C-alpha cells in the first residue's frame, strides 16, 4: 500500500500545523460553550476549561506517538492493526464523524446568522455559495487549505480583544470562591468544555502531508495551547459578566457579550463579529471536508475530487433539512459526545493496542 505516501511538493512546513490545529478548534463551539460548562461547574467553569485543555495535550502526544510509529495516517493504522474489513469499517466511522462535524459547523453558523442578523436568510442559498467557496479552496489541494487556515487564525484574532468589554463590565467576585465544586462536577464541566476543543483529530488524516512530522509535534501542542489560553480568557470574562442563572438562559454567551461593546464607529459589534466569524468557519469547513475526501480516496480508489463533490452535496442537503433549534442543538451535543469518547477513550486504546501489537510482532 504505497498510496499513503505524499509527494514532496504537496507537503507543508511543520510550523503550519500550529495554524491547522488551532483553527480547527476555534469554530462555532466558542460562541456558546460557556453555558454548557457552567451548568455543571458553576463559577469554577474556567477550571474545567483549563483542565480539559491541558488533558488534551496528552492526547495530542499520544496521537503523535501512534502516527509516528506508523509513519502514515490513521487509515493505515486501522488497516495495519485490524485488517482490511474491520479497519476499513473504523475508518468509515471516522469519515462520517468528520462529515457530521462539517455539517454541524455550517448549520450552526447559519443559525447564528439567522438569529442575530438576517432572520430571512435562505440556508440553501447561503450554504450553496459557501460550499462553492469551500470547493474552490479544496480544488487547490491541501496547501491551499493550510493557507486558508493561516488566515483563519490571523485575521479574526483581533476578536480576542473584544473580551475587554465583558472584562471591564465584569463582577469578579463571581469567580470566588475558587474550587468550590466537587471533582465530579468539574469533570462533568470538562466534558462539556471538550466540544470547542475537538477537531484537532483531523490531524490523524493530514499527518502524512507534514514535512518532517516529528518536528511538527511542538507546533501542534503550541496551537492547542493558544486555544486553551483563549478559552480560559473567554470563560473568565463570561463568568464575571453574567450571573449564573442569566448565563443558563443565554445560548450564545460570546455573542451576547458583544452587545455591550461600544465603539465610536459602530453601534452594534455583533454584526462585525459574526461576519468575521465566516473567516473562522471557512477553514473549519475546508479541513473537515478535505479530510473526509482524503479518507474516502484512501479507502476506495477514487480521485479525491470525485469524493469531495458528493460530500459537499450531502452537507448541503442535510444542512438544509435541519430547521429547528432543537435539532441543531441535538446535532451539536451528539457530535460533542462522540468526539469526547473518540478523543479520550479511542485514541488511548488505539495507542495501547498498537504498542502491544508491535511488541508481539517483534517477538515473533
Amino acid at each position: 500500500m504505497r498510496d499513503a505516501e505524499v509527494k514532496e511538493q504537496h507537503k507543508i512546513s511543520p510550523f503550519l500545523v500550529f495554524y491547522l490545529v488551532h483553527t480547527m478548534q476555534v469554530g462555532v463551539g466558542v460562541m456558546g460553550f460557556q453555558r454548557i460548562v457552567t451548568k455543571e461547574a458553576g463559577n469554577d467553569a474556567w477550571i474545567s476549561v483549563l483542565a480539559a485543555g491541558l488533558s488534551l495535550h496528552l492526547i495530542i502526544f499520544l496521537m503523535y506517538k501512534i502516527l509516528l510509529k506508523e509513519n502514515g495516517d490513521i487509515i493505515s493504522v486501522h488497516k495495519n492493526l485490524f485488517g482490511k474489513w474491520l479497519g476499513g469499517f473504523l475508518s468509515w466511522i471516522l469519515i462520517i464523524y468528520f462529515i457530521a462535524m462539517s455539517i454541524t459547523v455550517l448549520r450552526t453558523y447559519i443559525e447564528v446568522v439567522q438569529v442575530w442578523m438576517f432572520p430571512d436568510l435562505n440556508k440553501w442559498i447561503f450554504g450553496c455559495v459557501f460550499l462553492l467557496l469551500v470547493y474552490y479552496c479544496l480544488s487547490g489541494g491541501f496547501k491551499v487549505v493550510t493557507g486558508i487556515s493561516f488566515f483563519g487564525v490571523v485575521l479574526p484574532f483581533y476578536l480576542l480583544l473584544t473580551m475587554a468589554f465583558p472584562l471591564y463590565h465584569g463582577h469578579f467576585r463571581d469567580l470566588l470562591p475558587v474550587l468550590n465544586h466537587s471533582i465530579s462536577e468539574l469533570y462533568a464541566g470538562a466534558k462539556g468544555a471538550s466540544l470547542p476543543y475537538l477537531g484537532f483529530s483531523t490531524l490523524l488524516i493530514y499527518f502524512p502531508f507534514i514535512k518532517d512530522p516529528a518536528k511538527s509535534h511542538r507546533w501542534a501542542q503550541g496551537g492547542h495551547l493558544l486555544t486553551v489560553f483563549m478559552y480560559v480568557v473567554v470563560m473568565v470574562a463570561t463568568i464575571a459578566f453574567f450571573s449564573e442563572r442569566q448565563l443558563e438562559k443565554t445560548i450564545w454567551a460570546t455573542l451576547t457579550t458583544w452587545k455591550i461593546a461600544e465603539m465610536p464607529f459602530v453601534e452594534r459589534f455583533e454584526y462585525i463579529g459574526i461576519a468575521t466569524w465566516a473567516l473562522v468557519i471557512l477553514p473549519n469547513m475546508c479541513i473537515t471536508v478535505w479530510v473526509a475526501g482524503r479518507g474516502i480516496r484512501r479507502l476506495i480508489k477514487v480521485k479525491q475530487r470525485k469524493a469531495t463533490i458528493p460530500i459537499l452535496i450531502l452537507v448541503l442537503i442535510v444542512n438544509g433539512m435541519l430547521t429547528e433549534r432543537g435539532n441543531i442543538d441535538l446535532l451539536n451535543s451528539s457530535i460533542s459526545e462522540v468526539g469526547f469518547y473518540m478523543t479520550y477513550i479511542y485514541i488511548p486504546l488505539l495507542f495501547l493496542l498498537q504498542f502491544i501489537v508491535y511488541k508481539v510482532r517483534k517477538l515473533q
Partner: protein
Amino acid sequence: MKLPVLLCISILLLSGCVENSVVDDIQMVTVIGYEKGEDGKIKGIAVAPQFQADGTIQNSVYIEEAEISKEIRSQYNSESPKPFVSGKLQLAIYSREIAEEDGIMELTDTLQRDPFIGSRAFLAISDTDIEKMLSTNFGNADTGHFLHSLLDHNSNYGMLPKTNLHNFFYYYFSEGNDPFLPLITLEEGKVKIAGLALLKEDKMVAELPADDLFTFKILYENFSSNDSFTTDLGNGDHASIYNIASKRNIDLKMLKKNEITIKGKVLGVIKEYTGEELSAKVIDKIEKDMEAEVEAKGREMIKKFQEEGIDPLGLGNAVRSVTRGKFDYDQWKDRYQEVDIKFNMQVVITESGVIE
C-alpha cells in the same frame, strides 16, 4: 475560466439574499414606554424620530394597547408609513403602577430575547404619566436620545449608579442581588431624575430620593464623579466638595459574628466654602462633618434595605463569594435581616482650589 464563473454565480446569488433595511425607509424606535391600559391591557407608547431635510427632528409618537408587548409592535406597524425596527432602542420606561403591581419582567422579556436590542439600553421607572412625558418635545432632539443622554451622563459623571439592560438582568437573575432602576419624573416640561426605584425580584418595593443617591453610590460601587456634595457645617457655613473619587470595600472578616462592614473612602476637592478662612482645622471639620452626615444617611438606608428584605448592594453575592460549599440563599435571606451591617466613611480632602 472557473473563477470568473464562480464569481458571477456568487454575486448573482448573494445579492438580494436577505431583506435589506434602508435607513430612510424604516422607523427606528428610540424609546418605548409601558403603562397600564384599560381592562388589564398594556398601553405601549413608542417614539420614533423623523429627521427632516432642514435639520429639524420631529418625534412621532405611537400609542397602542394590547395583551403582550410584541403585539403592540404589530399594531404600530398598522398605523405607520414605514416598518418599525427595534435596533436603535435606547430606553424603555415602565410606569410606577406596573412596576409596583405586576412587575416588569414580563415586559422586559422581549428586550432580552430580541438580538437587535443592545445591552446598553436603559430601563427606567416613571413616577408621572409616560404618555405625557414621551409626547413632550425636548428642544430639537430625538426624545429617546435625549432621555438616554440624560441618564447616561448622570451615571458616568454624576451621582446615578450605573444601570443598563444587561445590569438589570444580571441582578435579576443573580440571587445575591436585587436590581434597581432610575426613577424619572416630568416636571414642568422637563424630565428629572427623581431617585432610584428599588426592586425585589422584578417588583418595585421602595425608592430612594435623589438626595440619597450620593450615599447610595458610595455604598454601591467605586466611582469618580464631577458632581458636588454640599455639607452644612453649622453656624451658617457651607462647603461644597467636588471631583469626588470613591472606593468601596466590603469587609466580611467578621461574618461569623454576624457582622459586615462596608467601608467607603472618598477623595475630594473643595469647590466652594462660604465661611471666612479655610484653615487646616476647618478642613478637618469639613471632613468629619461629611463623614458623619454620609454615615448617618447610609446606616439609615441599610436599615431600610434590611427591613424591606432587598439587597441592592449585592451583599448576598459578597457573602456567597466567601462561603465554601453550596450557598443556601433561603437561609441567607432570613439571616440578612439580622446581620449587623456597619458603615464607615473616610473623607480626605486633597485640594482646596486655586486660592487659599
